C-alpha cells in the first residue's frame, strides 16, 4: 500500500498540484449494544478507502474513493486536482504550504490484547455483565443500556514533502446508561471508559464498574429538583472543568477558527485572557488516553500544546495550512474522522492544570452557590465567544455545605469573562471520561480534565 500511496501522490503532483497528501485506511470494528437484558444491536464494520488532497494557490481539492486499485487512486488524484483547480479560479486568498519535515515511520500504538483476537461471545458476555450490574443494583432501575465499541485502523499517510508513515491504531470503549423510576419521576445516569489500546482495558475493574456508576447516578437524581436560574458562584468538578477547558477555550484556540475570523482570541497571543492561576493544555501525547496519537493525520509529529500559561495566551493548535498562513509550523493538530473526511484542527486531551488549593478549602469559600458535577455535553460559538455546557447534577452550597440536589443544569458564559472570574483552583487534577467532539461534521475521540475550580458570576439556566 505504501508504494501505491507514493505513486498516487506523484500523479497528483504531475497534474499540477503544488502539494498533495493522502490517507489510505483499512478499518475493522465491532459495536455491541445490550438493552434491558438482550442484545439490541450487534454490528461489524469493514472499511477501506483513500482520501486524497491536492493544493493549488490557496484552494484545496479533496477526493475520496473506496476502491483501492491503482486505477481508482489515479482517478481520485485527478478528481482532487480538478476540484483544487475549480476552487483556485475563485479563491481570494493566495498562499503556499510551507514544507514540513518528512516523516518515514511505521508505528503501532500500544495495545496488549488486540480486540480482533477476542472472541465475539466474550465481548457479548462482558456487555451483558454491565447490563446485569445496572439492573440488579436497585428495583427502581427501569431500563438499562450498555455498549461496547472497538476499532482497529491501519492508516497510511503520504505527502509530497516525502512523508510516508503507517500507523496501527486500536481503541476500545464501554459506556452505560441507566434509567431509574420512582413515583412517576424518571431520571437517567451515564458513565464510560475508553482509551487508545486493546481489550485489556475491558478486563480492568474500572470497566466493570461503569454500569454501577451509571445506575448510582440515575438513582441519585430521583430526588433532584429542577435547577434554579440566575447568576451564581459555582464550583466545577473535574469533569465540568474539563468540559469548560474544551468548550470555552479549546475550540477558540483552534487556528482555523482564527483564520476564519471566527474566534474572539484573534490578535490576543501574548495577552492576558484569564486569571493568572490558569494554565490550559492540549496534549495528544498522553499514552493510554482516548485522545492519544503520536503522529497527526497530516503526518506531523504530535506534541503537547501549552495554550495558556499563567493566564497569558501562548498560541494556537495548527495544521499545515494554518501553520503556513500564520508564519509558524504545524504543531501536529490535524485529525480526520476517517479517510473520507479531510483533516481539520482538533483537540486531543484538553485540560486545565492543577492549582494549590485543597478541594475542601474551595467549599469553605462559598457561602451561597452551586456545585456542578458530571458533564453531559457542551458547545461553543467562538465568534461571539459564547459557550454553553450542561452538567449531570448540581448541588446547592450553603456556607460550604452541600444541600439540595438539582438536575438539568446548564451553564453559559463568555470566553473572555469566565476564566477571569476564577476564584480558586484545587490541586486534585484528573483526566476524566472519554468522549467524542464534533466539529465540521466530523467526530474525534477526546478526553478532558482538570481539578475542581471555583468561579464567580456564572449564569446558570434552569426551570425555577
Amino acid at each position, binding site marked *: 500500500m505504501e508504494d501505491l500511496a507514493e505513486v498516487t501522490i506523484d500523479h497528483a503532483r504531475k497534474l499540477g498540484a503544488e502539494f498533495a497528501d493522502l490517507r489510505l485506511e483499512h478499518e475493522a470494528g465491532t459495536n455491541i449494544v*445490550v*438493552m434491558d437484558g*438482550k*442484545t439490541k*444491536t*450487534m*454490528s461489524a*464494520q*469493514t472499511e*477501506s478507502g483513500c482520501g486524497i488532497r491536492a493544493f493549488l494557490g490557496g*484552494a*484545496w*481539492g*479533496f*477526493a*475520496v474513493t*473506496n476502491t483501492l486499485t491503482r486505477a481508482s487512486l489515479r482517478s481520485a488524484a485527478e478528481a*482532487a486536482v*480538478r*476540484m483544487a483547480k*475549480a*476552487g483556485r*479560479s*475563485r*479563491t*481570494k*486568498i493566495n498562499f503556499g504550504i510551507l514544507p514540513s519535515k518528512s516523516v518515514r515511520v511505521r508505528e503501532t500504538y500500544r495495545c496488549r490484547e488486540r480486540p480482533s483476537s477476542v472472541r465475539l*461471545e466474550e465481548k*457479548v458476555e462482558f456487555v451483558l455483565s454491565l447490563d446485569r450490574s445496572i439492573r440488579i443494583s436497585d428495583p427502581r432501575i427501569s*431500563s438499562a443500556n450498555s455498549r461496547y465499541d472497538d476499532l482497529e485502523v491501519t492508516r497510511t499517510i503520504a505527502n509530497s514533502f516525502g512523508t510516508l508513515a503507517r500507523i496501527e491504531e486500536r481503541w476500545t470503549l464501554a459506556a452505560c446508561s441507566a*434509567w431509574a*423510576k420512582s413515583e412517576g419521576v*424518571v*431520571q437517567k445516569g451515564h458513565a464510560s471508559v475508553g482509551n487508545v489500546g486493546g481489550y485489556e482495558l475491558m478486563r480492568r475493574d474500572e470497566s466493570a464498574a461503569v454500569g454501577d456508576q451509571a445506575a448510582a447516578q440515575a438513582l441519585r437524581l430521583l430526588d433532584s429538583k*429542577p*435547577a434554579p*436560574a*440566575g*447568576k451564581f458562584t459555582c464550583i466545577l468538578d473535574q469533569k465540568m472543568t474539563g468540559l469548560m477547558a474544551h468548550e470555552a477555550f479549546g475550540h477558540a484556540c483552534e487556528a*482555523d477558527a482564527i*483564520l*476564519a*475570523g471566527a474566534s474572539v482570541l484573534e490578535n490576543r497571543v501574548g495577552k492576558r485572557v484569564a486569571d493568572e492561576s490558569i494554565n490550559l493544555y492540549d496534549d495528544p501525547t498522553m499514552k493510554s488516553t482516548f485522545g492519544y496519537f503520536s503522529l497527526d493525520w497530516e503526518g506531523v509529529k504530535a506534541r503537547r500544546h501549552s495554550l495558556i500559561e499563567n493566564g497569558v495566551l501562548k498560541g494556537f493548535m495548527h495544521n499545515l495550512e494554518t501553520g503556513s498562513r500564520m508564519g509558524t509550523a504545524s504543531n501536529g493538530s490535524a485529525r480526520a474522522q476517517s479517510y*473520507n473526511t*479531510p483533516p481539520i484542527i482538533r483537540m486531543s486531551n484538553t485540560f486545565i492544570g492543577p492549582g494549590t488549593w485543597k478541594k475542601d478549602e474551595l467549599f469553605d469559600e462559598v457561602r451561597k452557590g452551586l456545585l456542578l458535577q458530571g458533564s453531559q455535553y457542551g458547545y461553543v460559538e467562538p*465568534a*461571539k465567544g*459564547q459557550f*454553553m455546557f*450542561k452538567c449531570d447534577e448540581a448541588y446547592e452550597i450553603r456556607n460550604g455545605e452541600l444541600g439540595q440536589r438539582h*438536575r*438539568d443544569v*446548564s451553564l*453559559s*458564559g463568555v470566553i473572555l469573562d469566565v476564566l477571569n472570574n476564577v476564584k480558586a483552583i484545587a490541586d486534585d487534577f484528573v483526566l476524566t471520561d472519554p468522549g467524542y467532539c464534533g466539529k465540521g461534521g466530523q467526530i474525534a475521540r477526546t478526553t478532558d480534565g482538570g481539578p475542581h475550580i471555583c468561579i464567580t458570576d456564572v*449564569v*446558570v*439556566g*434552569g*426551570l425555577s
Partner: protein
Amino acid sequence: MADIIQLAERTVKHVMKLGASHCDVLVADSTHIVAEIEKSSIKQASEISDIGVCIRAFRNGCSGFAYSTGHDFDVVKRVARLAFSQASAGTPDPDFRDLPEPRRTVRVSGLFDKKLASLEPDDVVEMAISLSDTASADKRITSVNAGVGVGWGEAALVNSNGIRGFQKMTAFEISAEAVARSGRSMFSAMDGGSTRRLDLGLIDRIGENAKNHALMGLKQARLSTGDLPVIFDPLSIGFILLGAIGGGANADSIQRKRSYLAGRLGQTIGSPGLTITDDPTVAWSSGSYSFDGEGVPAKKKVLMGNGKLRSYLYDSYTSAKDSVENTGNSSRGGALWSFRHQPSISCSNLIVNEGDFRFDEMVRETGEGVFLRTTFDHPNLATGDFSGLMMESYLIHKGELGPSLKQSTIGINLIDLFSRVDMVGKDSVDAFGVMTPPLRISKARVAGSG
C-alpha cells in the same frame, strides 16, 4: 439500477443459505460535491464517492449488522458471514416477529432532481461564491464561513420476505455563518437549509438571513432573570422539536419507558392550536422517501393533533411488540441513505400546522418578551425538561424587536412548552427537517447576566 438490485438479491440468498431466519440488504452508491467558504473565500472543493453494502441478518430473533465499502461480491460474502456470526452470538429475542412483507408501493414525487445530479464542481463552487457574496454584502460583515453541498445516489433494498425496492435520491444542503463587527461590537449569525432539488432561491435566502441577523445582533443588551413570553423562530423550535418529538415519540424509547411521552398516548399534551404530523411524502423535502429503511411504503401520520398525542413512531420490531400498525419510520440515515447506518427509528419530515399570524403581528402582540432565533441544546427526554443557551436571541420591547441578548438561557418543561403555545405563525420554513412556522409561548424561565 439493475446491478445494485441484483447484488442485493444475490446477497439476501447468500445470507439465508448461511442459516439466517430473516435478512435485509441495502446496496448504496452515492456521490457528493461540496464547496466550502472560509472568510469569504473558497477554501476547499470535495468530491466524495461512497459505495457499499450493509446486511442485517437474524437468528433466533437476534439481529447482526455488518457493512463494507465496495460492491465486490467476495467482500460481500465475508460481510454476510460477519453479520450472521453477530446474530448468532447475541441473545435470542422473542419480541422479534418478522421483517415487513411486500405491500403496494407508494409513488412519492420529488426525490430525485436531474438538474442537481448533473452539476459540475465549477457549478457548486459558483453557488458557494454566490452564497458568500450575498452574506457579505455589507461593509460591516467581516467574515463569511459557508458551504454548499450537492449529492446524488441510489439505494436498493431487498429483504428475505420479497421486498425489493429501489430509490434514486438527490440532496442540496446550504449553510452560512456571517460575522459582523462595528466598533467594539461583534456578532455572528447562521442560517441553513436543505432540499432535494436545485433551489437557487434558497442560496439567496440563507445568505440574506445570515447577513441580516449578524447585523441585527450588533446592538446588544443583557437580560435579567424572569418569566417572559418567547417567540421561537423556525430555526430554534425546529431544532427543539427534532429531539422533543423525533426522539421523544420513538416507540423503542416509549416501550422502555425512557421518554417523557411514555403513557401519554391519547392525552392532551399541547395547546389546541398545535398539530404536528410526520410526512415522508412531501415533494423535495430532505426527509422524504417512497419506502422506509425496511421497505415499508411511505405514509403520513398525525403525531400531535390539536394538542393531543395521537401516535408514536414505529418500525417493524416495535410495532409488532405493541401489536400496532407499523408507521414506516425506519431510517437509513440522512437525505442520501448510507450503508453505514443501522436501521433505526426516526421521524421523516415533521410538519407543524400553520396558524394565522404574521411574524410582525406576533412581535407587536407580545409587547415585552424574547425572540429566540437559535439554540442547539437538547431536551432531557427522560424528564422532558429543557434548559439551554439562547445562542441568538433578541429582546422584544414595546412590540418591536430590540437588541440581541448576551449570555442568556431558557428553561421550560416540554409539556409546558407545548401547552403554552398561544400564537402560531403562518410562514413555515424547513429547519433541520422540521417544517414549522414561528411559535409563541405565553411564558418561559429566562436567565441572563443583567
